[in-house]
Structure formats: structure tokens, C-alpha cells
């Protein structure tokens, strides 16, 4: 039996035995193997479970409080959303509003929708949006007028959502598919073309409302309908007020959960590619580097298209790696730079070419890059290798490529694994940073000891109030940093901007550079000042720069700055997460004294500022708590 059939059988068996809740942690791995039809079935099973019972049995399950509303019946979306959320390890806690009540749901601060406290609100615009208000005789101008009224209403509802939904919540709209049964009611070809233009302008205006940082997102449904998903069933629309097909809602649900992953900072970081049959046509070990690169088969063009997709992802910060069962030398030759071959060794930050297990290869790559194996996407055309990685690397995403390279690109992009709210400048140069990291590693290997290596780096750190242009990067660090994240708290761009306007709040950007290059913003400090002193609410540092003393320099600098400012103490908090155990003693190692706990297993610390630790001597630190012209220097020798 195939992995897909096996997963389907296990899911049914769990349902029959009444064990779906007991086995809930196993559900994402089962759903990862299912196709669309089986996911529909799985969603119906899972939607019948009580979310509170799942949470009682598995308190650590990340929940997704979601509200669904719209102009027509949208209850059919809930099972699809349940399945898509579960695929990504999220437990949907849904609220489905009544039919067509979206204006009241969203405009009334006391509505049941807001009482649900949704993190995600889906306002589904079905294909009858606007058209339900058009009466004959009509012309494109009438549609343009009504579409604009609709857009203004939606803008008001988005503002209302921003005011009444929980901070950081996302309001989701979508473009409206244009149906032939409306366009072709216009018999004049010129008018019909004008209507098409009017409708695209309406869609473009909706898309321009998208501002993920401000909590508004717009899903473009055209890529779904152009891929053959029918938008409506006139019969179910007429008789049940259900104007979207199940297939459209399933596609919508898939995209909506990708959006949540992006907003939560769950984007994968690294694409690990097989070579033979994945990146090129042919078998390297049989044909040799020159022939696989120079393949001129009909299929070669399909592989070239896939390589261009991979290159495009890399240009936006996706780290590329290779995991191939081959000898290293021919792989190196095949990946060598070549004018006709866009991807080369330089583009891959890590190459594993050996005959060992690919699961081991993926783990080696993750360890080498300092990322979690669950931040990896593994793409391979071999079902066997995919299953090996699925079974042995929990959390890694596995892309099912097959023998048809013309489908590789669609398969790779099907799940939006690398989606982020907004690509930052830092993303574009990420691969270069990793190459610099390699140079440092070589330098370290050559140095006699670690301290002399650190001294040789000539590290400078500049920490100060975050500038506007740094907000997106700081949000990204907050959302994506796991290992050095003292409390696990996540902040969106909107929340950071809110802090910027609070005179008692402190958001410091930590910028670092050394002789190998400028790392840009590598960390952030979030704090608050009051009569008791400075409260260090969280500190995040990119795992890329850990181990260079940067985090120690910043904390020591903060203590010095607090003392200089005459503050009575600095308070800090460490709260356990799945990945930050190594930082449990971080504050204590800098002279903080434990001062109690909190209800989430955290440890509160206090530093009386009587004896402040020195800034590590190999770091040149400039740190300021306030945006001043003259930047305060913390010079180790003066301490």
C-alpha cells in the first residue's frame, strides 16, 4: 500500500476507534501524505472534534482562533480550514457567522465574531459579490459604481476589525472571480471588454488594500481559478446560497493557512534539493557532469524552468542546499559555475553528496546552517527518499516531485513554505551572510584558540532605538528566532509600530559587523521603563551570530546604560519554549538574581546595578537607549 493509502487507512481506523483526540499529535504527519479528496474527508472528521478536548489532552497544541464570515453561506469552509490548519500542526478553533451577516459581524464591536477573539478573520467574498446589487438594465459603469461602493464598505469593515479584533489579528479578503454568466449578459463586445477592465480594477483595488503588517491580507483567487478550479455551482448558489464550490473553498483554505504560517513567522528557511531527476535530467553517476548539464532532451527545458524557480526563491533569502546520493567530486563538477547554468556551487550554502541516509543528510545540513531540521523543505523525485525523510525528520516539509519535471515548479510552490509577510533587504543577502559564516568557520579552524579567533574578527555592535526601515526586519527576527528568544514572545510589524509610539516602551535594534561583512540587524531588545527601572521584556538574537559574544555585549551594555540613566534596577524574564533552554542561565550569568517565577514556567530576574559586568573585550559596542545624536560609548576599559 502507498504511503498515501496507508495514511488514509490509519486516519479511518483512528476515527472508528474514537482515538482521533488521543492521537492528535500524529495527525499532521498523516495529513502530509494525503491528497485533496482525502483532506476533504479528514477535515470533516476533525471538524467534529471538540477543540477544548484536544487542548485538554494536548495542551501544547498551537491553536488558531478563526472567524469565518461572508456575504453568503460559508460554513462549508470550516472543514477545509480544519484540515489545512491540522496539516500545519495548528488546531482550528472556529467561529462561523450566520449567512450574509458580515457587515453586522464586523461593524458591531459587541458582535459574537469579536467575542470569539479571532486571530484570523476570513471575510469570504463569493462570486456574487457586487452582482447581487446589480439590476437590469445595467452597463459597465453601473458595475464600477457598485464595486467601488463595495470596496469602500470593505475598507470601513477592515478599519473596524483593526479597532475591535485582538491586537495582531489579520483580516482576510479575497479577489472576486468574474463569472461568464455575468460578462456575457452584455451583448456589445466593446462593453464586455470594458466590464472586464472594470472588474480587474476592482480586483487591483482590493489587492492594494493588502498590508500584512497592518493586519489586512487579500487572497488572490485568480491563480486558483486559472488552474481549473471552478468558482461557483449555480444550483447550490440558487438553492442553498452557497456560491463557492467546495474546490474553491478548499483552495482558499489552503492559501489562508499559508498566510497564517507566514504571519506567525513559520516560514521554512532552507530548500534541500536532490539532484538526479530533480535539478537535472539524467543520472550523474552514469552520464557524468558534462552530459547532465548539457542535456538537450525535450525534458531539459522543464528542468531549466524548475532551476529558474529555485534561483528566484534563493534571490529572496531561501537558503539552497543539496542532498544527493552521489560521490562529492562529480557533484562539485556538475555544480561548478557555468554561463549556461544559472545555479552553481556559490548558490548552494551546503552540499551533502554521499551514500548515507538522506534523513541524516538533511539533519547535517540543518546543523551546519544552525537551523532546526523542521525549518527545512526537502524536494526529491524518489518516493522512497521522501518517506525516509518524512519518517526520520519530524517537522521537515517534504515536496512530492515525481517523474514529470514539468510539474516540479507547481509541486514546490503548492504549499507556500517560504512565504513571509514581506521580503526584507536582509532576506536578499542571507546566502552571502552564510558564506561569510563559512569563512569565519575556516578562520576559527585556523586560529590557535577561540578567544584569539574572536579578537581577530574585529566585531562591532551598534544597538539603539529601531529606525522605521528596520521594523520589518525586527518583526521577522521576533517571529523567526527560536534559539535565542528569551521569552518566545512574537511581535508583528503592527505591534512593534505600536510600541514605537509608546514613550515608556523600548525597542532597540542590534546591528553587527565584522571584518567578513556587515550582518545588518541581527537582534532586538524589547523593554519598558517605569519607576522600578528598566524591564527587559524580551531579547532576540539571530542564531546566525550566536557564539560571538554579541548577546553578552548587548546585555552588559544595557546594564551600563541603565546605571548611567540613574535607573534603580533592570528586570528580566526568561520563559521556556521548545528551543530556548540554552538561555535559561543567560541573565544569571550576567549578575542577575532570580526574583520569582510566573505561571508559564518562567523565571523573573532582577539586577541591582551595583556590580555591572564588562562588555566582552573583543566587541566594540555602541549602545544608546534613546535616539540621540551623540551615541554613548560603552568602553570595556572604563568599567
Amino acid at each position, binding site marked *: 500500500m502507498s504511503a498515501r493509502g496507508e495514511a488514509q487507512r490509519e486516519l479511518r481506523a483512528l476515527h472508528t476507534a474514537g482515538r482521533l483526540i488521543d492521537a492528535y499529535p500524529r495527525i499532521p504527519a498523516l495529513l502530509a501524505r494525503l491528497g485533496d479528496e482525502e483532506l476533504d474527508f479528514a477535515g*470533516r472528521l476533525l471538524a467534529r472534534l471538540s477543540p477544548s478536548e484536544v487542548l485538554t489532552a494536548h495542551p501544547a497544541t498551537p491553536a488558531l482562533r478563526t472567524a469565518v464570515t461572508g456575504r453568503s453561506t460559508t460554513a*462549508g469552509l470550516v472543514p477545509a480550514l480544519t484540515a489545512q490548519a491540522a496539516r500545519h500542526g495548528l488546531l482550528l478553533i472556529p467561529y462561523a457567522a450566520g449567512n450574509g451577516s458580515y457587515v453586522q459581524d464586523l461593524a458591531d464591536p459587541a458582535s459574537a465574531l469579536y467575542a470569539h477573539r479571532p486571530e484570523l478573520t476570513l471575510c469570504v467574498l463569493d462570486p456574487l459579490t457586487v452582482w447581487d446589487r446589480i439590476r437590469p438594465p445595467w452597463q459597465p459603469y453601473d458595475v464600477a459604481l457598485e464595486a467601488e461602493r463595495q470596496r469602500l464598505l470593505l475598507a470601513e469593515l477592515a478599519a473596524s476589525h483593526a479597532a475591535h479584533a485582538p491586537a495582531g489579528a489579520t483580516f482576510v479578503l479575497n479577489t472576486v472571480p468574474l463569472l461568464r454568466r455575468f460578462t456575457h449578459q452584455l451583448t456589445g463586445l466593446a462593453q464586455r471588454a470594458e466590464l472586464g477592465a472594470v472588474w480587474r480594477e476592482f480586483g487591483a483595488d482590493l489587492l492594494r488594500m493588502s498590508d500584512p503588517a497592518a493586519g489586512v491580507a487579500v487572497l488572490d483567487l485568480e491563480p486558483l481559478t486559472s488552474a481549473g478550479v471552478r468558482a461557483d455551482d449555480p444550483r*447550490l448558489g*440558487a438553492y*442553498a446560497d*452557497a456560491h463557492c464550490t*467546495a474546490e474553491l473553498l478548499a483552495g482558499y483554505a489552503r492559501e489562508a493557512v499559508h498566510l497564517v504560517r507566514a504571519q506567525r513567522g513559520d516560514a521554512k528557511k532552507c530548500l534541500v534539493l536532490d539532484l538526479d531527476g530533480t535539478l537535472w535530467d539524467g543520472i550523474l553517476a552514469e552520464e557524468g557532469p558534462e552530459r547532465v548539464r548539457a542535456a538537450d532532451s525535450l525534458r531539459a527545458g522543464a528542468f531549466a524552468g524548475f532551476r529558474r524557480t529555485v534561483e528566484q526563491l534563493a534571490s529572496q533569502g531561501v537558503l539552497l542546499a543539496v542532498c544527493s546520493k552521489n560521490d562529492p567530486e562529480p557533484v562539485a563538477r556538475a555544480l561548478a559555475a557555468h554561463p549556461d547554468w544559472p545555479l552553481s556551487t556559490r548558490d548552494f550554502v551546503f552540499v551533502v553528496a554521499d551514500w548515507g541516509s538522506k534523513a541524516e543528510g538533511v539533519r547535517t545540513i540543518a546543523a551546519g546552517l544552525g537551523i532546526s531540521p523542521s525549518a527545512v523543505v526537502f524536494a526529491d523525485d524518489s518516493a522512497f527518499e521522501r518517506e525516509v525523510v518524512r519518517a526520520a525528520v519530524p517537522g521537515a516539509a517534504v515536496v512530492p516531485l515525481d517523474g514529470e519535471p514539468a510539474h516540479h515548479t507547481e509541486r514546490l510552490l503548492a504549499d507556500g513554505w517560504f512565504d513571509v509577510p514581506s521580503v526584507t533587504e536582509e532576506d536578499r543577502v542571507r546566502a552571502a551572510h552564510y558564506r561569510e559564516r563559512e569563512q569565519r568557520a575556516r578562520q576559527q579552524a585556523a586560529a590557535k584558540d577561540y578567544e584569539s579567533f574572536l579578537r581577530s574578527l574585529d566585531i562591532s555592535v551598534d544597538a539603539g532605538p529601531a529606525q522605521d526601515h528596520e521594523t520589518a526586519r525586527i518583526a521577522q527576527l521576533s517571529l523567526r528566532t527560536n534559539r535565542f528568544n528569551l521569552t518566545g514572545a512574537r511581535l508583528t510589524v503592527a505591534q512593534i509600530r505600536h510600541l514605537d509610539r509608546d514613550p515608556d516602551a523600548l525597542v532597540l535594534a542590534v546591528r553587527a559587523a565584522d571584518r567578513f561583512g556587515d550582518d545588518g540587524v541581527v537582534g532586538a531588545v524589547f523593554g519598558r521603563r517605569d519607576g522600578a527601572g528598566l524591564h527587559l521584556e524580551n531579547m532576540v538574537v539571530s542564531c546566525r551570530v550566536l557564539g560571538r559574544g554579541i548577546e553578552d555585549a548587548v546585555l552588559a551594555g544595557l546594564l551600563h546604560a541603565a546605571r548611567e540613566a540613574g535607573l534603580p534596577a533592570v528586570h528580566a524574564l526568561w520563559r521556556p519554549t521548545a528551543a530556548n533552554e540554552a538561555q535559561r542561565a543567560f541573565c544569571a550569568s550576567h549578575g542577575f538574581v532570580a526574583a520569582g517565577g510566573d505561571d508559564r514556567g518562567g523565571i523573573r530576574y532582577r539586577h541591582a546595578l551595583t556590580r555591572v559586568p564588562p562588555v566582552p573585550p573583543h566587541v566594540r559596542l555602541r549602545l544608546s537607549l534613546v535616539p540621540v545624536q551623540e551615541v554613548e560609548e560603552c568602553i570595556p576599559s572604563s568599567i
Partner: protein
Amino acid sequence: MHTVVDLISLANEHLGTDLEPGDAARDLAEVPCWDSVHLLRLVSLLESELGRPVPVAEVLEARSLDEIWTAAVGA
């Protein structure tokens, strides 16, 4: 699809319901595992199973599985 029992099997297979032959004549509102959302999906399941369109309005107005069967297959 020869009898309403086949319809019940189809629903259980694809919708995850726990319907039994004894539910065929019951008012759907009184069948605990039944949800109106299932009915919309059942229309497309029936159509792909039968290989022909079903009279959607009659199926949606049906109050029991027997009535759905009669509207979709038995008529």
C-alpha cells in the same frame, strides 16, 4: 447504487458520518452525526457516483435519506 443503504455507505465513506440503515427514514435534523454542510458535498458525491446530474433543489429539500435517495436515484 441500488438502495438507500448504498447512499448511506457513500456518505459514511466520504463524509465520515456514522449513519446506519435505520437512519434512512429519520428526519435529518434528528440524526446526530448529520450536518447541513454534508448535504452540499453529498450532491457532488452522488453526481460523480451516478455519472449524471441530480435534481439539486429536490435533494436539498429532502427531509430524510430516503427522500434524498428517491429524489436523486429512485425518481
